[in-house]
């Protein structure tokens, strides 16, 4: 290393979300799209879903509010004429409900495929740079696959939402953000398992999302 880094190049390096300097109290720069939940936005670095990265949502059962969580972001994207893609959803994404959440259906695409091809499709969509968000349900998701999706999301600057069962919480994951939904008969809570960037430990990492 004998090259002298130009100050601008160094600044660019320090801007990288993966780098945090102990000496500075500033939050590393994270580009994010608001989730629509004020409490959650306040906690998450950058104030929302990280752009160009994988966000994992883990839940044990279907129908606990896992999709409502991403709906405001999706609605905003379609309003800005960005495409959102559902890759191998377990059920039918119900058009009237999506429309009621403010999603412009003209920008919604659904892809049905077997698990391997589903993973391939999700990666293609993310990498292409022409999709705003890709929501995928991948039963074969493992570290390698998520890493691929993460790289694809970075190169295509798209939001990747990966929905996985709760038992995946114990496994390591390269996702930039991991949320787990805990439910009981009364309420649903969100727990932030992991997020890229610093998080204020004084604030609760478990939030009420549906009472």
């Amino acid at each position: 290393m004998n090259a002298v880094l130009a100050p601008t190049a160094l600044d660019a390096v320090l801007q990288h979300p993966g780098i945090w300097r102990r000496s500075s109290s500033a939050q590393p720069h994270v580009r994010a799209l608001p989730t629509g939940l004020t409490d959650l936005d306040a906690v998450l670095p950058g104030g929302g879903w990280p752009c160009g990265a994988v966000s994992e949502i883990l839940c044990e059962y279907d129908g606990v509010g896992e999709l409502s969580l991403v709906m405001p972001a999706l609605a905003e994207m379609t309003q800005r004429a960005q495409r959102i893609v559902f890759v191998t959803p377990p059920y039918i994404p119900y058009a009237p409900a999506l429309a009621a959440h403010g999603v412009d259906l003209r920008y919604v695409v659904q892809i049905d495929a077997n698990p391997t091809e589903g993973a391939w499709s999700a990666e293609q969509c993310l990498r292409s740079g022409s999709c705003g968000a890709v929501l995928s349900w991948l039963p074969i998701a493992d570290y390698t696959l998520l890493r691929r999706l993460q790289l694809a999301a970075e190169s295509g600057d798209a939001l990747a939402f990966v929905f996985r069962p709760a038992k995946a919480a114990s496994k390591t994951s390269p996702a930039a953000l991991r949320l787990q939904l805990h439910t009981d008969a009364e309420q649903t809570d969100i727990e932030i398992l992991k997020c890229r960037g610093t998080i204020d430990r004084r604030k609760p990492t478990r939030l009420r999302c549906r009472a």
Partner: protein
Amino acid sequence: MLWACLYFSDLPLRAVFEDVELNGLCAVVDGPRQRQHIVMSTERAQKFGVRAGQPLAAARAICANVQARTRDVAAEQRLLKSLAAWAYRFSSQVSIAEPDALLIEIGASLNLFGGWPKLERRLRHALARIDYKPSIAAAPIPAAARVLAGHGDNYFIEHPDPMLSALDYIPIAKSGLSEKSVSLLYNVGLRTLRDVFALPRPELARRIGPSQIDLLDRMRGRVADLLTLYEPPPHFDNRVELDDRVEAWPPLLFPLRRLCNELSLFLTARDGGVQRCDIVLDHEDRTNTRVVIELLTPQREAKALYDLARSRLEHATITQPVCGIALVAKDLPELKPRHKDLFEPRREQGMDWPSLIERLRAHLGDTSVRGLSDVADHRPDRAWSFDDNSLTAPKRTPSTVTTLRPPRPIWLLHHEIPLRTASTRILAGPERIESGWWDGADMRRDYYIVQTGEGQRAWAYVAAGCLDGWMLHGWFA
């Protein structure tokens, strides 16, 4: 008018030795089976002494290794036709001069191509790329251009007078007159066309016949030449015969690439695109397998077509040995090239939306990638539908059907299933949906929003008025 003639002297050889390098020992033979004679031979064969007109037996005696194939006039015509299709890019007036030449009207667009030297270089360059070296001549009269091209290369005569004097020096053997007339005139002591032109017309006509006189008149422009102009076929239907019987797709890719290139050239000449084409795989028992390629938007580019065709061919099941592959395209709409913004920020390796969708559809199947839309119907199953318009260009205005509806679940189950969870709690309902008596699919149901013991929110129904027999229809995810 100015006509360029491309004279393909080795066409008979090219037509039958498509698969062999033409620098070998090859010869084309013709005539009755017992007394076949050489029509044309390659340069290397000529060095051994194999010449046109020689009986095949004599040629074999001189050179035992000569590879002889029977002349195929139909193949020559096919070849000439494909060359005419190729030449169509240079002029809209292309005529096939049987048996071995093409006439192209270049006068109208000479300025466009920047003059004859440039056009000629361009023609030769483009021909060399498809491995042809014809002799080229240009003259104001098509028949004269043909004669000049047969005599030598590189004639370019723009005006009739120098053309006539050039014709004067053409030996009669190369004048295009019939063999009988040539030998007759030669025996009288005539050597060039000047000698023939000098003869008194009635006497000459009596000896060589009116058709030959007509030819002489046409090359001097004394009578109008009626040329049939080449018309590009309205459809694309090209076929490649395979030498072996093929039972899997990989060996089909090479001919497929060639077909796609041909299709692309064809489309460029038409200034059109292709939206739907079929790959037809022929089997020995005259049945065939069709692989349909449907595209969302018209395409023209050879590489894109090949990639899309290839991934569909990979998914096709080939049950029997394939002996030929064809590409048929009948639906040839206009192509409107996509305009890209000069200042549009583009990422490297990025792919625009239409190519992404085409790629996904090619890989997964045409019905695997769908758009969604809502429908004005109260029955939950019918309140949505697939809608592929959004895949291409979202132009329709956003629908406003759903503004005043009670809450609907984001997940709808493909089929209703009995709701089997203990300790449920009704959060909202009932909402009675009673509709469809007019089309035979009537329903009377009470829908409730139900919370299960696990915290799931379900959209469940019972038959109207009942309180048991709960069916799950969706999840408020």
